[in-house]
């Protein structure tokens, strides 16, 4: 292991000076520097003599601080994405040791305690986790056994939660069981459901659904549904990439939040759509899964709504964070053509969900659904483009004529057959009066009265009518 780490350090040190010299040139080498920093930081932490808990934590923080202050690599959680993509660019080179090194670095940083405040700690763990996962997943057949998959979920959960959470403990318990594939998927889905229900300070926003997608992938893989597993793995990858963007504390700008939102055509809609359809595809596994899937889909829908509300209520505004353009570019690429992202992540997807997919523009859910992200983005961005049209010149007549807004329609306009309903209305009023008299209700109150008493007080009859309608449709002859 030490030799591996040393080799990683050598690579990092060799790579650093030319990269450092180009540091000021902009964001193109940003991700490479990030990876190099990361390896070096992990190795420094690893090689520091351990004399005591406190000193190790302090030196850890100092080493990290020194390295972090070197430049572009601000571990604010959003840059984790750049690190992922950059490390993909490096690690897809045909060496076996590099992914191992980075994966180990991620795991080591995950375990190592730090003296930083909780938020920074969380983000640090998050990014280290993404790297570690990426490193592990790049290895073919590393995820062969179900235990490894559950371990992966455990790592993910530990990375996402700032503290030791209930979920981690539950998953530790599940590790002790002899697991079939579908069972471990089920456990992961349950853990994700708990994560959806957990208070937001326990788990990064979007973390619960991500774990559910991982569980869907594992279960579909175990059930032999290759397409569903593929869709689940893609949803998981999308959710992982978007995870840092969902952090309100990261201070994303307005455009970034717009592209990462769950509006169809934006990037945030993709993991939702893919994961939901992968999960719905699991219904083919058997009737026992159906009820679970319905419950889980309701839960995910609810969690999505709550997450969107929470993100909306967290008002950040236009932030002054530097390097927004690469993030926007990656988000936009993901929104328009997620096939490119999947192509980049194909080792991970192949090890998680099996081979398959490969379509660039049309992505397929696990249940026969299809979605064309580029078409959706083009359609949605058309009205956005309309915003840049020059508006009509301001006219003082239009602005000064403040109409009172009362009364719709010009005065004097009479709808000719308006009076035809008087007979009906008279009977309605009579019925209403009779009913009010019968109910002994004399005050009108705030409640609006009218024909609505038909539906308000006889709901059973309405239900029966609707039921009959449904039954008629059910028993309709062919």
């Amino acid at each position, binding site marked *: 292991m030490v030799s591996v780490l040393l080799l990683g350090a050598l690579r990092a040190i060799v790579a650093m000076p030319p990269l450092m010299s180009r540091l000021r040139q902009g964001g193109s080498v940003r991700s490479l520097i990030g990876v190099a920093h990361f390896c070096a930081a992990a190795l420094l932490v690893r090689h520091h003599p351990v004399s005591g808990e406190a000193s190790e934590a302090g030196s850890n923080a100092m080493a990290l601080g020194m390295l972090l202050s070197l430049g572009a690599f601000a571990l604010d959680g959003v840059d984790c994405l750049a690190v992922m993509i950059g490390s993909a660019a490096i690690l897809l080179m045909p060496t076996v040791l590099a992914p191992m090194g980075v994966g180990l670095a991620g795991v080591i940083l995950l375990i190592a305690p730090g003296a930083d405040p909780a938020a920074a700690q969380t983000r640090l763990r998050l990014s280290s986790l993404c790297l570690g996962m990426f490193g592990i997943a790049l290895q073919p057949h590393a995820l062969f056994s179900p235990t490894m998959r559950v371990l992966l979920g455990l790592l993910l959960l530990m990375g996402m939660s700032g503290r030791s959470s209930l979920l981690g403990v539950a998953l530790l318990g599940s590790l002790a069981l002899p697991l079939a594939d579908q069972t471990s998927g089920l456990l992961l889905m349950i853990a994700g459901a708990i994560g959806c229900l957990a208070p937001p300070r326990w788990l990064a926003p979007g973390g619960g659904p991500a774990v559910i997608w991982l569980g869907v992938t594992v279960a579909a893989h175990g059930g032999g549904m290759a397409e569903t597993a593929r869709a689940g793995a893609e949803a998981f990858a999308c959710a992982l990439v978007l995870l840092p963007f969902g952090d309100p504390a990261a201070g994303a700008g307005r455009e970034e939040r717009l592209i990462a939102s*769950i509006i*169809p055509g934006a990037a945030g*809609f993709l993991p*939702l*759509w893919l994961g*939901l*359809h992968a999960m*719905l595809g699991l*219904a*083919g596994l058997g*009737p026992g899964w*159906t*009820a679970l*899937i319905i419950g889980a889909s*309701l839960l*995910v*829908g*609810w969690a999505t*709504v709550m997450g*969107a*509300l929470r993100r909306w209520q967290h008002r950040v505004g236009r932030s002054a964070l530097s390097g927004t353009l690469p993030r926007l570019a990656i988000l936009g690429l993901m929104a328009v053509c997620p096939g490119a992202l999947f192509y980049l992540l194909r080792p991970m997807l192949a090890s998680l969900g099996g081979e398959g997919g490969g379509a660039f523009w049309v992505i397929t859910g696990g*249940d*026969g*659904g*299809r979605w064309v992200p580029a*078409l959706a983005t083009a*359609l949605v961005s058309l*009205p*956005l483009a*309309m*915003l840049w049209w020059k508006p*009509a010149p301001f*006219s003082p007549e*239009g*602005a000064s004529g*403040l109409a*009172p*807004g009362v009364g*719709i*329609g010009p005065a004097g*306009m009479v*709808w000719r057959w*308006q009076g035809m309903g008087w007979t009906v*209305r008279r009977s309605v009023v009579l019925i209403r009066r009779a009913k009010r008299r019968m109910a002994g209700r004399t005050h009108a109150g705030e409640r*609006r*009265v*009218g*024909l*609505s008493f038909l*539906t*308000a007080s006889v*709901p059973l009859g*309405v239900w029966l009518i*609707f039921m009959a*309608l*449904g*039954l008629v*449709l*059910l028993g309709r002859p*062919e």
Partner: protein
Amino acid sequence: MSATPGVLVLQSCFAALQGVVVLLCAPLMGAWGQHVEDYLSGRRPVPLAARWQQMRADWHRGGCVTAGPRLALGLAIVATAMIPLATVETPFVILADPLAIGLMLLTVQGTLWLRDAPARWRHERQAVRRSRSIMRRALFVVPVLVLASAMIVIGLPGANGLAGLAVNLHSQPVRALTGGLVFTALGLLALVSPLMTTRDGAPRPAGRDRAVSALAQDVAACGWAMLVGDLLVPGWLATWPTEGWAHFSMAWLTVPVRLALVAMLAALFRTRREDQVERSALALVAVGLVIVLAGRLEG
């Protein structure tokens, strides 16, 4: 149908026709819903043509259109282009996922609400609070839409969105799904009925801005009505005209009737108290789910 250029052109023509029909019908549908609601609750009904005329007068008054209503109108038109209205043969129905459409329509209404709320907050705090609670409650449409997707997949595996539902149901009828979707669509309608109203509490300055806002609101309401109508009876949607000219023409001709029916049902829901509507929505969705599950277990 294979995607030859001729087919694509014809499909684009259908999409354009659908857009025109929606833009023409939407204000009438909104006015009709308001009319029914007024009638049911004992108020003096508003004439049907009044909303169109109001919009026309506002447009002729001039003024500039701000960003919010523009965006809302554009998004609403896009969303209604994605929903099949009379035929599934348009280029955009591949995007007719209930969840996607619902999220887009919620975005439209949220944009419109956001445009008004801060300005009104100073003077009409109560009204803004009320509209905010309506918007928040409307977000629970999202789980219901997810559930509708789940029901479609469970009842009819392999169907792709609303268009796939209509086409597959045409060739392979699943009664439990058809019956269950009736209830789910009614529950959905009960939840979105507060969003389909044309009565906005705040008097706005007259001008093009108000006209465009009103049109966006009506088109969004029409989108909800189309979504509910497609879920209610998917068999109304026609496939390619050569596979049944009578059905094709009837599907187009009955569009106003269907929209009017859905708007009337929404008005019926609006005259009831909110908590009752929510309870009935929950019950309706649950009944629909039970029916679909029963059909699945039977089959």
